[in-house]
């Protein structure tokens, strides 16, 4: 395979990763890392660097549309970034301390659990009308979005800010350690713990993963993990895919988004467990 074949084929795969990632609020790293390591036999450290680039590309590409369409909860997103960025900075320095195998197993178990809780909530998408959460009320993290499928404005209240913040810290930590956007943890934190509607959770996760990834991207750049010939097709392809994917979310029912999310979560969880148990 020549460099041209590599660039073109990787760009096409990246378009698909961008579409999927933007739709369910993940960074596409879950597609990019296995593709690079298993299909192209690229060193895992370079694959992780490319994955960080893919996360930022998905986030910025999709969020530009979601913010304009008021699908993103800007206040909740920016508030929760307190936890994700501090988690990411601590994670970037824990890489040397924690054994990677342990991380993969830990992350695999967490994802298996969150796929279970997300699946259990598949019929319940009744947004809350009252919130007694003092933090959410003080910062007014509640919101409202226009659902194109139901053709009406849907207001919602936010609860569970404290467990939300804790989960977001873990998400930031995992993001830096494994080079993923960890939308797989952010979406359940908002959907299950904080009761944001599924589509808002996905759009807000998309909005946040770019900032989480940027917090560890500097480290990856200096360590020489961002190889231009891998990063270029990934960035360009994912950006195109995320822009396309962002046009779809509004027109899909919340239940569909949740089911696709659960399937992807189960796949990643098995992937992580496999890496941790049979490396």
């Amino acid at each position, binding site marked *: 395979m020549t460099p041209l074949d590599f660039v073109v084929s990787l760009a096409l795969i990246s378009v698909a990763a961008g579409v999927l990632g933007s739709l369910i609020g993940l960074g596409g790293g879950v597609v990019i890392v296995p593709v690079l390591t298993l299909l192209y036999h690229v060193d895992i450290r370079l694959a992780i660097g490319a994955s960080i680039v893919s996360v930022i590309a998905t986030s910025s590409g999709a969020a530009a549309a979601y913010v304009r369409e008021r699908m993103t909860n800007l206040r909740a997103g920016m508030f929760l970034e307190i936890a994700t960025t501090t988690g990411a900075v601590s994670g970037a320095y824990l890489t040397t301390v924690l054994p990677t195998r342990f991380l993969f197993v830990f992350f695999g178990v967490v994802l298996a659990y969150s796929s279970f809780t997300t699946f259990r909530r598949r019929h319940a998408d009744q947004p809350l009308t009252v919130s007694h959460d003092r933090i959410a009320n*003080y910062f007014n993290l509640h919101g409202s979005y226009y659902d194109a499928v139901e053709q009406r404005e849907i207001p919602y209240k936010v609860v569970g800010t404290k467990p939300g913040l804790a989960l977001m810290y873990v998400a930031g930590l995992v993001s830096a350690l494994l080079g993923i956007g960890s939308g797989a943890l952010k979406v359940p934190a908002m959907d299950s713990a904080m009761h944001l509607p599924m589509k808002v959770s996905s759009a807000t996760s998309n909005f946040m993963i770019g900032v989480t990834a*940027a917090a560890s991207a500097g480290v990856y750049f200096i360590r020489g993990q*961002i190889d231009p010939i891998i*990063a270029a097709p990934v960035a360009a392809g994912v950006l195109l895919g995320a822009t396309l994917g962002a046009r779809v979310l509004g027109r899909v029912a919340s239940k569909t988004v949740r089911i696709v999310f659960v399937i992807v979560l189960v796949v990643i969880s098995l992937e992580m467990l496999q890496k941790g148990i049979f490396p």
Partner: protein
Amino acid sequence: MTHPNVPTGASERPPYDQPPVEALGRSGGRVLSPEEAAVMKEKVRKVEVAISLVLRTGVVVSVLVIATGLGLMFAHHGAYLPVSGHFSYHRLTSRSTPFPHSFSSLGRSIARGQGRGIIVLGVLILILTPVLRVAVGVLSFVYEKDPPMALVTLFVLAVLIGSFFLAGV
């Protein structure tokens, strides 16, 4: 006859373009008066459009720079171009492949007009886009007269900038 897809006035603005008054508010839990809410509604919409514009601009600029870099790289290295041949991409994707990963080496690479340097520059623009978005977020909350949220966002910006210094950039 107007084209059905072209909005002709405020009444035909897309439904997502109008934040409902009930959902508006600042930190502190105080309910806004109708006048305040009307002002807030316009401000919130402006902020959303501004943040969306920052993200879109960052994305477009980085893609253009990355594409230029890729073009230059293939133009300089004829051996990379054939669809079939002996030159394997592995020589460019192994741990020993040289590419700039510090600002001084990046500057030298761009000065020499190397495609890979220009690609890295485009990737750095992409990485800085979310940081810029957070900075705009701080200004937005100042504009919305919401000091607690402005402080929260300022903290996030400080952690982000700090992370680059901690990395030794």
